[in-house]
């Protein structure tokens, strides 16, 4: 058998394809020359220490920050691949609240703290035209169940929730419109370990069950070990190593990745 005889299965078209993405803040490099693709249902982890450019990258990808150069191509439903940087602002905002989800590190950035849990979840359906109170409410409660929030809290404001509950509510609020791509910025940051585990397990289940593609930015290797199919390691704005999560974590090649991996305390 020769190499030329090798055939590959037809690749699924990428959901999101990033090419040559760079963003600087003056002379300070945010991220530099980032290229990757993510396919439907795939979970990509981005790890790196603080200041490595992972949050800048996430902000560029999710349309919150305009990159200096590069393209971000997204396979829009019913329209095909589109460079989202060429979309008009309303189109991009619509995409962000229907086909995408954004889970912020701080639930305060992703929730309306003065609106009940049910209202928080109902906002997206209402934004795309849901006008039947009973339906909106029952859908909201379905999602509260999914994220393990007691239904007796439906009408309580998230201000009164624990950090873990707020984060779960934020996830429900995002997933209610069945997005195909979810961006998560340190989804377990600031939570204590037992709460983290519950959240991670929940996220893992939902992502698998719904076939959602996700990009998870974190500095916590345990998070990516559990959730991510694939990993990109960033340092000083660049991707220095990437591959399957277990490959990168179990057989790291780059000096920085080795340092990162060997710095994790074993319990």
């Amino acid at each position, binding site marked *: *058998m020769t*190499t030329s*005889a*090798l*055939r*590959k*299965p037809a*690749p*699924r078209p990428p959901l999101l394809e990033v090419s040559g993405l760079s963003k600087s803040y003056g002379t300070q490099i945010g991220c530099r020359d980032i290229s990757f693709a993510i*396919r439907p249902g*795939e979970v990509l982890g981005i790890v790196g220490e603080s200041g490595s450019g992972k949050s800048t990258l996430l902000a560029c990808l999710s349309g919150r920050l305009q990159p200096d150069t590069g393209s971000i191509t997204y396979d829009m439903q019913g329209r095909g691949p589109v460079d989202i940087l060429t979309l008009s602002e309303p189109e991009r905002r619509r995409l962000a609240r229907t086909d995408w989800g954004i889970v912020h590190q701080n639930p305060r950035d992703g929730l309306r703290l003065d609106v009940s849990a049910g209202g928080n979840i109902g906002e997206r359906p209402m934004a795309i035209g849901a006008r039947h109170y009973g339906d909106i409410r029952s859908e909201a409660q379905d999602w509260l169940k999914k994220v393990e929030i007691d239904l007796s809290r439906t009408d309580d404001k998230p201000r009164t929730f624990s950090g873990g509950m707020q984060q779960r509510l934020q996830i429900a609020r995002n997933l209610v419109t069945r997005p195909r791509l979810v961006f998560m910025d340190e989804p377990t940051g600031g939570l204590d370990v037992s709460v983290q*585990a*519950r959240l*991670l*397990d929940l996220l*893992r289940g939902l992502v*698998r069950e719904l076939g959602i593609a996700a990009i998870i930015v974190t500095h916590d*290797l*345990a998070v990516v*070990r*559990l959730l991510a*199919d*694939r990993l990109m390691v960033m340092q000083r704005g660049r991707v220095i190593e990437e*591959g*399957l999560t*277990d*490959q990168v*974590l*179990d*057989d*790291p*090649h*780059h*000096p920085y990745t*080795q*340092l990162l*991996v*060997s710095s*994790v305390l*074993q*319990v």
Partner: protein
Amino acid sequence: MTIPLHAKGLTKTFTLHTQGGIILPVFDTIELTVRAGECVCLHGPSGAGKSTLLRSLYANYKPDAGQILVEHGGQTIDLLAAEPWEVVEIRRSTIGYVSQFLRVIPRVAALDVVAEPAISNGMPAEEAKALAETLLTRVRIPERLWSLAPATFSGGEQQRVNIARGFIVDYPILLLDEPTASLDAANRQTVVELIREAKARGTAVVGIFHDEEVRNAVADRLFEVGRAAESAVVSPSKTDERALVGALVA
């Protein structure tokens, strides 16, 4: 007849940047062919690189050179040149891997841990759970533990859950890293039976079996590992490897 697994010119070196850039050659231009229904036992002294080879065959470690040709969905694919998502697909349906240690997922019940690979291969959940119950019974996990997360199980129980999980899908290729290491005689016998049944179905098995009894019971031939390491300046001991791997984040 097609060959399910064929490693060609496989070479693996570790470079430990955190320890002054030490280079540890593990193996060099390995050739390994495994046929359907055959069980190959990786053999060699401790630290010879058997686990490294096995992990490389699963694309868990990244060899420096060579090819790992795998029969997947009627096609021959080089595992080392495949895209990550292809590797995920191949691992889902073609290559099974049973390690010595169960990676415990918080809050997931033992029954679900076992059933998961079958479900992700398209088996209806009820059917997969019934099969998982059969397997857990065979490896003698008491029924009262099925609904518990295996985090609190003993080492032997965890390993048996891991074995049940590894055998629930009829993978064409099965990689076994000391599957009987901490098992009693009765459970060792069960694992031998499971391996024999897999071979009878035509599974190509590659394994590391330190237990001579098990090895004799299942292995069709031995594959010597460790020549490169013998000639190397520094031999990668298990502890070095653990330090390097260091990554087993709970």
